[in-house]
């Protein structure tokens, strides 16, 4: 029968992954809250003006905050996606490729976002 556990070797136990999922979820809640509050300190439209945005990026604490958000949500979100995907089909090839796919997604979005933060941090107004 095509029943036995397909996944025997795993880097993390599923419980560890899910703990990470929960923790990233909760932490994301707080940091995103701060991120959004920044939008409402000043009128919304003003907060989106190029100068104001770049000013924010110059603030090293804010830049770190953004980086944290980026990492947390990328992990949480792509792991969520992985969960949904591996529930869809059960065979080793599919599961492996989905895991790799989500990890690639996770890394690339973090990399791409980090690039914005670094460059933003160095931009002249």
């Amino acid at each position, binding site marked *: *029968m*095509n029943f036995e556990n397909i996944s025997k070797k795993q880097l993390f136990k599923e419980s560890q992954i899910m703990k990470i999922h*929960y923790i990233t*979820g*909760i932490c994301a*809640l707080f940091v*995103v809250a701060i991120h959004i509050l920044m939008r*409402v300190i000043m009128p*919304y*439209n003003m907060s*989106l003006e*190029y100068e104001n*945005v*770049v000013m924010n*990026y110059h603030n090293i604490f804010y830049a770190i905050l953004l980086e944290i958000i*980026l990492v947390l*949500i*990328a992990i949480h*979100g*792509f792991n*969520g*996606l992985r969960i*949904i995907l591996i529930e*869809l*089909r*059960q065979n080793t090839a599919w599961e492996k490729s989905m895991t790799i796919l989500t990890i690639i997604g996770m890394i690339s*979005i973090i990399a*791409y*976002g980090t*690039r*914005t933060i670094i*460059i*933003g941090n160095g*931009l002249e107004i």
Partner: protein
Amino acid sequence: MVVNDIGENRVNREGLKGWLNPTRYGWERVSYWFQRLTGIFLLVYFIGHVYETSSLTNGIDAWNAMLELTQTTGGHIFLILVIGASTFHSANGIRLIFVQSGKGLGKPGRPDYPYDPVSLNKTQRSGIWIALILSAVAMLYGANVLFE
């Protein structure tokens, strides 16, 4: 769909349709469905948002061009949905974290007819409602800010 040794003709899994249909089995099922949809939706938005902000690196003109693209009525409505989705997902997510670690569920006991599963108790149901209401409020507030 899932086919193992049982052969195509006999497969009777509900499949994707199963989890996409929240209309049976009560409110917990609706909350499950919403949590998934909002999760995927937020992920899509998140990717888009990272891409959106990256236009920053190409200077003020690129940034303003992007703003012009997104800060439209349609874009605002989309943003309001994101606000609603993230409020629901976070609030309900916190409830889920609690219940999935066994908190706030009530105790098993001797089953009594008519059977009333304690896991589907008032606390849970009100948790779902609170998440729904919070997200509605957040959406109203968001609309207020965006369309002032």
